[in-house]
């Protein structure tokens, strides 16, 4: 691992033995009459890549929003490194060491790619209003470190050439890379990737797969939602299958491929349709 500098995070730092990186216990989410997430429980072990799959409308993104704190949980608990995080604000959860990307890319308008990634360094830096306004030496040094670390991430993503280009004017795949760099800039312990391969061609998808494995090798646990089966099957250590908000299966990729229930919801079944 030649690129890893202090971005490498010890994934067991502060974790009590036996604690999962992330643990969901009978999580429910209701939107009025719609039961979007229904009694979902699973664990994400430190250092693995776990995928959440399911047909459209299965509640995958809702689940992500519950974990990241963008939506309140109806009932159930979510533990991150043994600490309860449901009910916490998204920024607090981010400060605990959980970073995410968005399905519909959310980059900052009017900022260069480099600046977007520098925003990601927020939790790893201190300078406040006062030191910023008076440009104190401490803020100044910190700023240089932020810039250097962000630039390295752009290099890791192979988009360093576009550092000074406005992020929102980049090509789709590059925007996605900027977003991932922004998430990594926070030096997270757990990275949530919401459809990292959506809209990418097969070559780009293969590149993303390599990248995710590399992120895992840096010691960052990865939880992803994905539609692209080849990607999920290739890289995941474990897969959770959701259907209509319920957990249908949780197993290694090979077993999931042979799971009759899973095949039924993905491919349909003759008697399921006629019944």
């Amino acid at each position: 691992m030649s690129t890893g500098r202090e971005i490498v995070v010890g994934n067991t730092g502060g974790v009590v033995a036996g604690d999962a990186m992330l643990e969901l216990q009978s999580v429910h989410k209701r939107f009025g009459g719609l039961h979007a997430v229904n009694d979902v429980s699973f664990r994400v072990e430190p250092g693995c890549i776990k995928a959440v799959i399911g047909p459209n409308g299965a509640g995958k993104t809702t689940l992500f929003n519950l974990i990241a704190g963008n939506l309140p949980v109806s009932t159930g608990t979510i533990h991150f490194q043994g600490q309860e995080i449901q009910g916490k604000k998204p920024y607090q959860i981010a400060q605990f060491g959980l970073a995410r990307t968005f399905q519909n890319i959310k980059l900052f308008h009017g900022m260069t790619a480099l600046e977007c990634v520098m925003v990601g360094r927020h939790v790893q830096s201190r300078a406040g209003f006062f030191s910023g306004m008076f440009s104190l030496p401490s803020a100044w040094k910190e700023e240089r470190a932020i810039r250097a670390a962000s630039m390295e991430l752009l290099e890791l993503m192979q988009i360093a050439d576009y550092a000074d280009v406005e992020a929102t004017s980049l090509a789709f795949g590059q925007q996605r890379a900027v977003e991932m760099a922004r998430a990594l800039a926070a030096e997270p312990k757990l990275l949530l990737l919401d459809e990292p391969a959506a809209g990418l061609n097969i070559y780009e998808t293969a590149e993303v797969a390599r990248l995710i494995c590399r992120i895992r090798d840096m010691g960052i646990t990865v939880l992803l939602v994905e539609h692209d089966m080849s990607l999920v099957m290739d890289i995941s250590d474990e897969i959770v299958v959701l259907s209509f908000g319920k957990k249908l299966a949780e197993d290694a990729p090979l077993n999931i491929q042979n799971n009759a229930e899973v095949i039924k919801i993905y491919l349909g079944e003759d008697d399921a349709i006629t019944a």
Partner: protein
Amino acid sequence: MKKRKPLALAALCLLVVCIHLVTILTGSQFYLTQLTMAAYYGLVIIGLGTLMGYAGQISLGHAGFFAIGGYLSASLTTRNLASLQGTWPVKGLDSLHMLKIAQDLSGEQLITVAPWAACCCAVAAAALIALVIGIPVLKLKGHYLAMATLGFGTIIYRILLASPYFGEADGISEVPGFTLLPAMGTFHPIMVSGAANLRVANYYLAWGVLILGMGLLLNLIGSRVGRALRSLHSSEEAAEAAGIDTSRFKLHVFVLSAVYAAIGGVLLTHFNGGIGPSEASVMKSVRYVALVAVGGMTNLWGTLIMGVGLTFLSLRGVFGTFDDAVFGMILIFVMLFAPDGILSLRLQQLRKAIFSGGRP
């Protein structure tokens, strides 16, 4: 960007000196009075520009903060506290050496708060009010935030207009100047005052304060906090995901811009020797917003140049009785043809924009 910032500030300093020289050569030094006033208004406008342009939060109540600063400082330095002598607030102020004891024309004792102390109290009060108002109000977005801050501005205006302590419709006059450095030897004292012999000193003082304020804001925008503000402007959700406490940052920049407005209000009031309720009126708030828009929201330099320039013309009475109408027109024009500010337009674009009916 990094190298250009001190250069631009130095150029502005040079421009300030040049304008002074030109007024000497043309014998029109009376312009310096309005240029001084425009600089103090400029302080309000760049503070609001940071709030609106960078953090993306609108405020239609900034004339309120300007007035809180000006009125509090004016009332504390003019209202006689002799009847309250012996009560704890006056004793407390006295023990902190914050009182000025003199005798009025009829020989009665006149106890007022010293201008420097009044200034500090006024700015602190504005910051505190901004904090208390900001906590609930900044939960709102877009039009709702505009309406809530408009409501705040209206309340301040009505309070000033209705309370005898603040002089009702007459406002407060005979506000003393305030001394920054006492007279030393042959030097005049350095004080914020409209006295004719201090005109040049006050011109440089006002522009010094404005350039300092500008430099601090430019530093802020280029810093980690500035990036956080710009990011929450674009997407609060993504900013939160990056670990940014968006509500705290919004509140702090709101308070900061209120402090800029209050400092502008305090200094202008002591310079003018008085303040009237029109300074708190809603039209003033609208004018500040219009000036930020004319300068081009996310362009602090544009905001400064257009803001001070138009305010100067307005103070010279160029727009006559149509003053408010002109600022209304400017707002319409900017929104239609130059949403990124007048300075963003090139002449050709402007012609095209007008004849194609907007949206260049």
